[in-house]
């Protein structure tokens, strides 16, 4: 990252080669369109190149920083494309609590396996609530409308799910800072 902050093109290539596939996976999961997802990836890496000084080592891993940029840009794109008051139609795999494609592809690394195992400890409903917020960019209220559940239930499920994950993965997660 120090080299990237000095505008080293080789460091930029390395950054891209290491992280572009998971960044594209996230963008695609959010926007549901391959071309739009590639645009998000392009915007993300250019933002990382042009604003590399916004990365602070103490606040987390480089990959987390990149994925955070990608998620925000993808969700912004999703919201702009969504007419006011209308909820986005998500890819069924996002909202289907029985979806296992992500979980079955979990052998890539021990870290990934740990995260997948922690997600498996959630109930289907808890995981769905977290995924609708994270990948769908939906608020408590929008999730409540989407799932026809009381608002209080949605808030409670999200809190319980995140608490479970936090306990299970405490040793993997550097704090991301008190502020975003």
């Amino acid at each position, binding site marked *: 990252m120090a080299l990237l902050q000095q*505008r080293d*093109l080789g460091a930029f*290539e390395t950054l*891209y080669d290491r992280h*572009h*596939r*998971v960044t*594209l*996976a*996230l963008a*695609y*999961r959010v926007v549901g369109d391959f071309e739009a997802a*590639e645009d998000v*990836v*392009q915007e993300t*890496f*250019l933002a990382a*190149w042009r*604003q590399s000084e*916004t990365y602070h080592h103490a606040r*987390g*891993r480089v990959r*987390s920083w990149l*994925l955070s940029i990608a998620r925000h840009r993808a969700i*912004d794109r999703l919201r*702009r494309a969504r007419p*006011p008051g209308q909820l986005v139609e998500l890819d069924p795999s996002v909202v289907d609590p029985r979806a296992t*494609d*992500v*979980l079955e592809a*979990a052998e890539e690394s021990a*870290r*990934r396996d740990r*995260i*997948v195992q922690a*997600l498996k400890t959630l109930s289907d409903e808890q995981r769905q609530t977290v995924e609708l*917020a*994270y990948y769908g*960019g*939906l*608020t*408590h*209220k929008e999730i409540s409308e989407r799932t026809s559940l009381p608002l209080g239930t949605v*808030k*409670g499920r*999200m*809190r319980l*799910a*995140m608490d479970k*994950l*936090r306990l299970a*993965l405490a040793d*993997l*997660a*550097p*704090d*991301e*800072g*008190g502020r*975003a």
Partner: protein
Amino acid sequence: MNDGRRQAEQHSEELEELAAGYALEALDADDTARFHAHFDGCDRCRDLVAGFRGIAAMLPETLTPVSPSPTLRDRLLAEARRDLDQAAEPVPLAPIPLDERRATDGRAQSALWALSLAALFAVTLGFGYLNYRLQQQVARQAVALDAQALVLQAVAAGGRQWTLNGTADAPGAAGLLVQDPSNTRPLLMIHDLPPLGQQQSYQAWVIAGGAPLQAGLLERATDTAYVARLDRSLDSADTVAVTVEPAGGSHAPTGPIVVAGRL
């Protein structure tokens, strides 16, 4: 003026329940404002949010990686190279090893030669820097002219306008917000803003019901003027404001408000 802040509540189980939603950015506008007001003064909630954000950052690591089209890498690298070319910063020259030269037989001649090189170095550096500054000025003038043209187009097309006024932190500043009917992203132009530090940015916020939503960073157009195409629509917004933030911006306002306007 509504500055997006409200009275902080005492810690409660209900507020604690909002921490997960806050970390996942899933709070509605009212809950965001409520939790944000409480958050700064509550160690417990700050710890919870930090932990939950760490968890949220891990979620996409479980996705199956996807390969992009082969041209994406080339397109990105071409953009990055263009940035480097445009910056055109002067290449630093290696310092002249004066001590080594003085140790040789032709001492006086070498010293003169070194002085000539030093002078050439200084002139080259000076011209390089001047060229760099001129390029920056030309680029900024282009940004300012583009923004003015967009405002004129928007006004001619019947776009809505609002004025923004400087606060006590920037009393001379003022701005114009224009909603072009043909573009969903409002245009914001601010002039006479105070100079920023090297690690600072001006960031725009669209405030709805007391909850500030990030709306993009302002781009410098002249020495004191800035422009931005806001990332947010003005639907249901009641205020637009600009704050000083760390370079690259923040997810929630942290610095002083320098201009604001009611819609």
